[in-house]
């Protein structure tokens, strides 16, 4: 074979080989000019070979503009990948590999470049990347969701590598157990938090699961900062390829609130059951949606109906309400249901099994659904017969009492009227004969004196004196009885002025007497001026009367606030230098018709001081008398609660 032939053969061989592998190759001299081309050049590049032969840089113009720089980069890069926008618009990937060779026909180093379409491989690779990315994203999202869900559900998770003994705890799990986020915890630290009674059980359950590989579920209690937490947990065990337990893991939930609520419910149900049993009341629960009333045992106890007799309808109850009460009770119940009422209460009479009616008080609470419709009522009936009877008794007693009071008042009023009539008759009719006695005695004395013995004339004087004294007695008695009924005024009374006026009047009536009177400062008081004037008249005329044996009557009038008989209060005093009185009988001083001196020595009816006492008493004050060591007497009285301060102010 000639060298020429062999060259041609070699070329054909090469061409076929590149063609078979869908590859193209070209050889460029050291100046970049393409000298030989093999294989499927035009299929790969979709450009005529002539373009490359004319311009060694044509390839840079064919590839994706972003990859142009890769082509133009010269140097030792053995392989490049560039994109090519195909005629159908698709992007194709072309792999370029270059190698420098020596060609005896060419001067310098020649460069052989092999191009290959790697689009298919590239697409697969990209798809794999995308799939990987999507899977990662989904995983991240689901982890996020899981974390949110566990947080929301208060679900904690944990796991323990059974070969290394290393435990992992989720944040939520740490929170349930009461550990901080970064606190290192192992099995022992966890067990320490479990209450002592539950610890062994927790261990047993987990150990069993590790042995037999079954899922486990368990409930235990924790003590965190002194507070008890209830935890519910489920878990499982993972095995390795050879069936050895490798990892135990679990999900736990803090169920403290649910446990507490359940306990509370149980307690309240228990309480209701106990109450219903213990109370005498008939408790009821009326389901309006199906007209069904459940009655507690109290209903049977109260009203003696046997459980068989009782039917659960409303009418069973309403039929037994007293006919006179029924309409009103049902109307009020309707009212509570139809209007926005929450509570209903009614008293009525209810028929017992024996036919007798008892007074009951019925109270119920209205329960509404979300639409405000009443679906249920719960309440209780109490027997108030006893209370009612007592109320009736009390009312009757009150009425009787009132009647008696009215009768008494009427009696009293008629007694008062009679007393008035009596006083009138005393004042009017008793005086008439006295006038006759006095008048005719006087006429007898004047017109028939010559015919009468001196003794007879003396008797006539005695008769007249008696008549006059009786007239005085009648007047005093009437004045005294009037005092008890007359209403009193409450004016500011100038006691100093009244005392002075009284003294002046008394002086005027006894012009022949030598009288020395001193009047100290007297504070005003609140009272009835004319009644208080009477007090001064009676006390001062007594002082004057009983000092008659003295040549000079000395009367001192003053007011003090340090009298031992009434400390701190104003005491008005009248003192005289008269004959005084026997203190042994002081208790009789203020009694009506009681006298401590014979009428032959000192005239009087025994009413004056009784009047003083009554007036002072009606002014809320006190009056008393003392005999003085030097023979005179002293009378003191208070008016109401007039305090000594007023006196001090008055004097200073």
């Amino acid at each position, binding site marked *: 074979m000639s060298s020429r032939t062999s060259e041609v053969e070699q070329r054909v061989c090469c061409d076929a080989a590149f063609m078979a592998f869908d590859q193209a190759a070209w050889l460029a001299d050291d100046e970049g000019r393409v000298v030989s081309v093999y294989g499927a050049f035009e299929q790969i590049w979709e450009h005529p070979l002539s373009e490359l032969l004319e311009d060694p840089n044509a390839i840079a113009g064919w590839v994706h503009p972003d990859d142009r720089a890769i082509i133009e980069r010269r140097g030792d890069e053995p392989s490049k990948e560039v994109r090519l926008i195909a005629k159908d618009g698709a992007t194709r990937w072309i792999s370029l590999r270059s190698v420098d060779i020596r060609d005896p026909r060419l001067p310098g180093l020649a460069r052989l470049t092999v191009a290959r379409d790697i689009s298919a491989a590239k697409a697969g690779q990209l798809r794999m990347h995308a799939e990987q990315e999507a899977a990662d994203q989904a995983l991240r999202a689901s982890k996020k969701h899981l974390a949110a869900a566990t947080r929301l559900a208060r679900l904690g998770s944990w796991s323990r590598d059974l070969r290394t003994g290393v435990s992992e705890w989720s944040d939520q799990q740490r929170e349930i157990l009461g550990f901080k986020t970064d606190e290192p915890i192992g099995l022992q630290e966890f067990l320490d938090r479990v209450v002592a009674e539950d610890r062994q059980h927790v261990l047993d359950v987990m150990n069993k699961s590790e042995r037999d590989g079954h899922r486990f579920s368990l409930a235990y209690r924790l003590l965190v900062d002194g507070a008890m937490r209830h935890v519910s947990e489920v878990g499982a065990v993972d095995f390795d390829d050879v069936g050895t337990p490798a990892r135990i893991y679990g999900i736990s939930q803090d169920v403290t609130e649910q446990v507490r609520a359940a306990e509370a419910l149980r307690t309240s149900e228990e309480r209701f059951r106990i109450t219903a049993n213990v109370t005498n009341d008939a408790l009821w629960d009326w389901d309006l949606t199906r007209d069904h009333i459940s009655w507690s045992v109290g209903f049977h106890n109260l009203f003696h109906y046997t459980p068989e007799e009782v039917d659960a309808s409303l009418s069973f109850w309403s039929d037994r309400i007293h006919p006179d009460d029924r309409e009103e009770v049902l109307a009020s119940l309707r009212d509570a249901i139809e209007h926005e009422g929450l509570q209903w209460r009614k008293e009525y009479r209810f028929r017992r099994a024996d036919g007798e009616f008892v007074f009951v008080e019925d109270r119920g609470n209205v329960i509404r659904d979300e639409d405000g419709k009443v679906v249920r009522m719960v309440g209780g009936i109490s027997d108030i017969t006893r209370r009612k009877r007592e109320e009736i008794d009390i009312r009757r007693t009150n009425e009787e009492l009132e009647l008696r009071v009215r009768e008494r008042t009427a009696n009293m009023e008629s007694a008062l009227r009679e007393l008035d009539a009596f*006083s*009138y008759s005393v*004042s*009017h*009719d008793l*005086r*008439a*004969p*006295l*006038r*006759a006695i*006095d*008048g*005719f*005695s*006087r*006429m007898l004395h004047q017109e028939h004196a010559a015919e009468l013995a001196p003794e007879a004339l003396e008797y006539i004087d005695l008769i*007249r004196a008696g*008549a*006059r004294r*009786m*007239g005085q007695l009648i*007047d005093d008695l*009437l004045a005294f009885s*009037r005092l008890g009924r007359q209403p009193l005024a409450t004016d500011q009374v100038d006691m100093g002025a009244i005392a002075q006026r009284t003294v002046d009047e008394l002086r005027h009536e006894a012009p022949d007497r030598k009288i020395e009177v001193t009047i100290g400062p007297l504070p005003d008081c609140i009272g009835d001026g004319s009644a208080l004037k009477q007090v001064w008249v009676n006390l001062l005329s007594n002082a004057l009367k009983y000092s008659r044996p003295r040549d000079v009557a000395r009367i001192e009038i003053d007011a003090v606030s340090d009298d031992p008989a009434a400390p701190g209060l104003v005491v008005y005093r009248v003192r005289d230098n008269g004959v005084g009185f026997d203190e042994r009988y002081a208790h009789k001083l203020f009694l009506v018709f009681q006298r401590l001196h014979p009428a032959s020595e000192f005239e009087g009816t025994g009413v004056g001081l009784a009047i003083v006492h009554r007036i002072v008493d009606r002014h809320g004050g006190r009056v008393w008398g003392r005999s003085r060591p030097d023979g005179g007497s002293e009378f003191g009285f208070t008016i109401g609660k007039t305090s000594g301060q007023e006196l001090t102010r008055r004097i200073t």
Partner: protein
Amino acid sequence: MNGQPIEILLVEDQPDDVRLAMHAFRTFDIADRVHVLQDGAEAIAFLLCTPPYEHRATHEPPRLVLLDLHLPKVDGLEVLRCLKSDPRTQRIPIVVLTSSRQESDLLESYRLGANSYIVKPVDFEVFLSVVRELGRYWLVRNELPCDSSDLRQQSRSLPKELS
């Protein structure tokens, strides 16, 4: 009637009181001008000149009526009410002369128009002075409307015991 005009009408049912009063009037020599009636109904008939006093003339009223309150048939307060509400008699001075010190009697008497109220004193001496004062005041001092000028004329000729 003894021809003298009536100057004082005494309405009093108690014979003792009438005798005592007449003694007092005699003391002052005016007894013959006093007319005594013993119950309220008669007093009203006398002053209003109704039977049995229809012959009397209303323009000759007494100068003073002394009226007890406690009277048979029609009591003193009723007499007061009747006379003081009648224009023919409402100007006649009426002095209540009674044993009653009852506040209600006093109030009612003045409300009905009594000109004065005197409680009969038990002491006869006091009674005498009361009668003298009454006569001096109502028969001498007191002025009445002109239609009884003739009476005023006579008042000047009162007995010296009163002046």
